[in-house]
């Protein structure tokens, strides 16, 4: 599966995902779920890897091939709707039983996308859009996204976030959400992929060493969270 997180800070955005792919033959921690679309925008996928990767690669190719036509977030998101739908339909058409029905292993699977970035040429805002097949990939604007294997992170993140949180703090929150989820959810794991979107740097994918520092630097917070549970339990 995946855990996909897009958090909003006062000075930018944080995107994070794990790298685990799971399927009938087991799992591997090699999935690339993030791509940079242009200087200020990134795209992330979760759920089914095949249509997800096909969708984000196609979007990046089209935008990079004609950047002037995709100068605003609205134009990128509009194009993405068509591309993601097409990638998903193509995938479904290749995975149908002879009677036309979807093969059983895929009936409960989904694919989803997050497009996030700074819309400098139109609104001047940091924006996050989520696109899922339920609405035929119609984009929905979000304050934040916690998707795919979301339940643990959905519980933990509100305890850790606060209004006006900086990108640096949001990086810690995203890291903690990833660590606590991967500790209890076998379909989430492997090296984290993390990116930030800020005015000064645009979309910036963190290097492996920076991600390792985030993981190491948050170990004390993991312990403090555990201690918080124990102390909270003991108040009664």
């Amino acid at each position, binding site marked *: 599966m995946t855990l996909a997180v897009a958090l909003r800070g006062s000075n930018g955005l944080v995107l994070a995902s794990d790298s685990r792919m799971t399927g009938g033959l087991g799992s591997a921690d090699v999935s690339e779920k993030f791509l940079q679309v242009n200087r200020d925008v990134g795209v992330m996928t979760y759920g089914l890897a095949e249509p997800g990767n096909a969708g984000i690669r196609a979007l990046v190719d089209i935008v990079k091939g004609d950047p002037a036509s995709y100068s605003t977030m609205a134009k990128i998101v509009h194009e993405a709707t068509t591309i993601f739908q097409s990638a998903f339909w193509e995938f479904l058409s290749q995975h149908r039983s002879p009677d036309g029905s979807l093969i059983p292993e895929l009936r409960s699977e989904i694919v989803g996308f997050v497009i996030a970035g700074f819309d400098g040429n139109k609104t001047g805002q940091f924006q996050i859009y989520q696109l899922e097949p339920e609405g035929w990939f119609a984009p929905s604007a979000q304050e934040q996204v916690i998707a795919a294997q979301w339940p643990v992170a959905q519980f933990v993140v509100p305890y850790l976030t606060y209004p006006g949180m900086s990108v640096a703090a949001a990086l810690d929150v995203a890291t903690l959400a990833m660590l606590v989820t991967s*500790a209890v959810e076998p379909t989430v794991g492997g090296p984290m992929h993390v990116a930030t979107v800020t005015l000064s740097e645009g979309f910036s994918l963190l290097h492996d060493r920076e991600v390792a520092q985030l993981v190491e630097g948050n170990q004390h917070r993991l312990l403090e969270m555990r201690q918080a549970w124990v102390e909270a339990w003991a108040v009664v």
Partner: protein
Amino acid sequence: MALIGLAQPGQVLVLASGARGDESAIREQVLTAGPFVLALHGDYGNHLVPLQTLCSGVAHGLSAFAFLDGIGQYFSAVHPDDGVGAVAAGFFPGGNSFLMGFSPGGARMMFFPWVLGGGLPENVGSYLMSNLYSPYLSHQDGLDLCVLLAMVYAEVLRRFGYPDGFNVIRLSAGSEDPIWLDQPHMSASIARNQIRLRALARLMLGVIDR
């Protein structure tokens, strides 16, 4: 319909969800069978009457092994594509508690100390249990942990009506019949957990700051 089972020395709890405010619907899926309990989840509608009949025929004095064998035989005859599932709870001779899961086709699995049914994602429970479970929890703490799981699932997943959409049946070692906990017990447990969750929010505030 979702359920949570928690077993500890001397006590087994089964917490079941249901329609808000409809006590009979809440309890319908949890069948008592002499000193044992059989909690159903999934598409149990077609299986309710035969399993009720089976459970009502279970007499005090029947061994846990014979009870589990009877349930196992029933599920062996259920088609593997049927969406029903069940969790049996009770005590073995000698007093060890058990939570045994049954699936169509006859698959059985023993769980300890906790089990979920009805499609609840296991990761939330694993997260809470990894932080809070101890084999030395008191029986009241065991009840509170079971209720806390339901409260968190209610909050995060909207899968339990809250606070009046779940009920707990308690099996105690050495006592004859499982007992549904009354509303004052449930309300007290919920109130204790609300204090804990408020404390947790306060304590977590400092985590990102350090």
